[in-house]
């Protein structure tokens, strides 16, 4: 059982393996296109870990994560355009995300369930609307170009950018593991279970909800900056429905409330459309059918499926259920 325990709850082991695998990946890829896919996997992992902490662990559903994703990207683009260097623009963008979340979070987090979802969705819609209509500042539909990343005079290559994203994605997974494995994680579980009960046990519900909301939006902003650097552009589509749909799909496919669901979901959601192009016009239909099958047969996503598989494979013989005895009449 110790092996099973280590497999499911180890803070360091699996992220370390992911880091090693991530660092090896560029040596196995044949083109920059593949590197772009790997970079997007890292970005969606960062984005969806934030959503997982907020919804999967704390039970607070936000449909406005794409708004924070775009906010981080736009803040970074505007700051770099204003001449800020990367090392200043990045933390400042994340601070902008945190500040906006604090401002809107206090009233929003008084709401629960679908009311919170609707209110946060409104934030996403408003942001996308502002981004496409405030043409003088945001460039409107065409968006803004983001210059290639320069650090200390060195022009960062695509591969180096990918390595940076891998390290950040693994750090985010570690952060999630740390949160989930500590007192804070248990508080989040209690929020998901019953806020009133949590409050009666002395949990400052509002404060914790606000903290996890801010953390998830900062992670969304971080992912947005990463996406701006990979795309070398920001445009209003960063804050629109396709991103939200991707977040939800990653959650369904990977598994909500699991430690590595965001990574597994991101891998499938980024790679599947590329593999399905071979089916031509049937591609969209097949993609939809696959998602339905995930929902029907893997309600806990790939993460839940793999966990069940590991439990079955590594279950000690003694732990197997005893065969039923036939009772003679």
């Amino acid at each position, binding site marked *: 059982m110790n092996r099973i325990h280590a497999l499911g709850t180890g803070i360091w082991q699996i992220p370390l393996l992911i880091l090693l695998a991530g660092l090896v990946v560029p040596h196995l890829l*044949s*083109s*920059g*296109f*593949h590197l*772009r*896919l790997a970079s*997007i996997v890292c970005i969606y992992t960062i984005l969806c870990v934030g959503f997982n902490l907020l919804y999967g662990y704390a039970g607070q559903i936000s449909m406005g994560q794409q708004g924070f994703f775009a906010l981080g990207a736009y803040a970074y683009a505007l700051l770099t355009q204003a001449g800020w260097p990367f090392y200043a623009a990045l933390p400042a963008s994340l601070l902008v995300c945190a500040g906006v979340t604090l401002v809107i979070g206090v009233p929003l987090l008084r709401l629960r369930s679908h009311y919170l979802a609707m209110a946060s969705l409104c934030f996403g819609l408003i942001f996308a*609307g502002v981004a*496409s*209509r405030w*043409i003088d500042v945001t*460039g*409107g*539909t*065409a*968006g803004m*170009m983001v210059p290639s990343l320069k650090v200390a005079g060195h022009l960062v290559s695509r591969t180096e950018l990918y390595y940076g994203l891998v390290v950040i994605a693994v750090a985010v997974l570690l952060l999630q593991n740390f949160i989930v494995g500590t007192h804070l994680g248990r508080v989040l579980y209690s929020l998901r279970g019953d806020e009133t009960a949590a409050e009666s046990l002395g949990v400052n519900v509002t404060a914790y909800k606000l903290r996890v909301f801010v953390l998830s939006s900062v992670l969304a902003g971080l992912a947005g900056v990463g*996406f701006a650097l990979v*795309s*070398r*552009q920001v*445009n*209003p*589509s960063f804050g*629109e429905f*396709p*991103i939200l749909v*991707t977040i939800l799909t990653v959650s369904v496919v990977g598994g909500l409330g699991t430690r590595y669901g965001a990574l597994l979901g991101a891998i499938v959601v980024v790679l599947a*459309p*590329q593999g399905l*192009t071979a089916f031509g*016009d049937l*591609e*969209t239909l097949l993609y939809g059918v696959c998602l339905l099958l995930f929902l029907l047969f893997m309600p806990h996503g790939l993460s839940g499926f793999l966990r069940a598989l590991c439990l079955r494979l590594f279950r000690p013989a003694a732990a197997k259920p005893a065969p039923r005895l036939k009772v003679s009449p």
Partner: protein
Amino acid sequence: MNNPIDLRSRAAHPHGETRRRPAWPFAALVLAGAVLAQPAWAKDAIKVCFVDDRSGAAADTGIQSYNGFQLALAEVNAAGGIAGHPVEAVAYDGKTDPQLTATFASRCAEDDGALAIVGGNPAAPAAAMIPIATEYEIPYLMLSAGTDNLTDAPAPFHFRVGPRNSQDANAIAGLVSTQGFKRVAIINNSLPFGTDSAHAALAALKAKNIEVVAQQTYDINATDLAPQVSTLRNAKPDVVLVFPYAADGARVLRTLQQLGMQTPRIVARSALLSTLRDLAGAASDGVLIPNTVDIHRDDVKRLFEAYKARFGAEQPTMYPVLGYDAAKLVFKALAEPKVLAALDDGELAAARVALRDAIVANGHYAGLQGRTGATYQFSESQRHGPPDDNWFVFVQVTGNGKQLVDADLAAFTPTP
């Protein structure tokens, strides 16, 4: 079932079972025939990518443009390809998702080894492909994405084949002025196409000193548009301009009809799509639409006859022509000696640069858009192809939304 040449037939087995006749000799024959039937190309295929939205909200535009692209492809291959090279299309459906579209564009540039990318009807996916074209230095011919500033930033490998929103707006404002309308009402959806177009129309009308008495914006998914249309009606305009997508445009026209507004209407290019007119039915009759295809040109007629023969009947609109013209622009440039020399040397990057230069050099290409004699106007400093003059042709909807005919401008005047 016992016909011996039917490969699906099963001969009766002595013991009542059935056994399959060996099908491989026939299959081998078919395969050999198929191989022999292929034209024997002397050289490797040249790949051109088509990345557009063939599902999602803008599917109609992507499908029609791809059909036009395929007609041009069939023509060039039937004529022997380009200096012995067959041309091969690699097509991806971006599903109106900008991030997916950009990823497909990078796949075209890296994995597929394409020489050029064609596509981009909605603005957001089109915008997402521009940095890819710049980064990989691959010519990208954008289709009907109309946002004005898409071609403003320096992007040396990016070309726009379709008109931009301000050109539609100027054409509409010109018509409104010529026909003597004085009080204009505008209604547009909240998507980038709607807001950008309305923005451009306001500027164009202001430049002609024409008063805008009301402007309303609605969400594309709104089912009840009566509040917005009532506001327009109360402003008593003498003409209504509509900037919608397909389905919501039909709702606007039906609501205008239901609320008894007989005011002359001009609807943006989205009404060229049959989806809008089919949904609106009789409510779309009489509507004027700016088109960039002159239906009286013989070459345009020939294209749409070929389109009908291969894909079914389609009204003569800009979308198939955009795909066709973009493909023709690329093929003409591919035939330039510098491009072919780079290809023969296996220098893909050099071939792309030479192709970009050749598109610029052939910048005054006479395609099927515009009136007779109009040409594109690409140059080193001009990546927006359509000129401002002699490009737009207004068509009118008739026959319960089924047909597009010449606009009857004599009758399209303010109601007394």
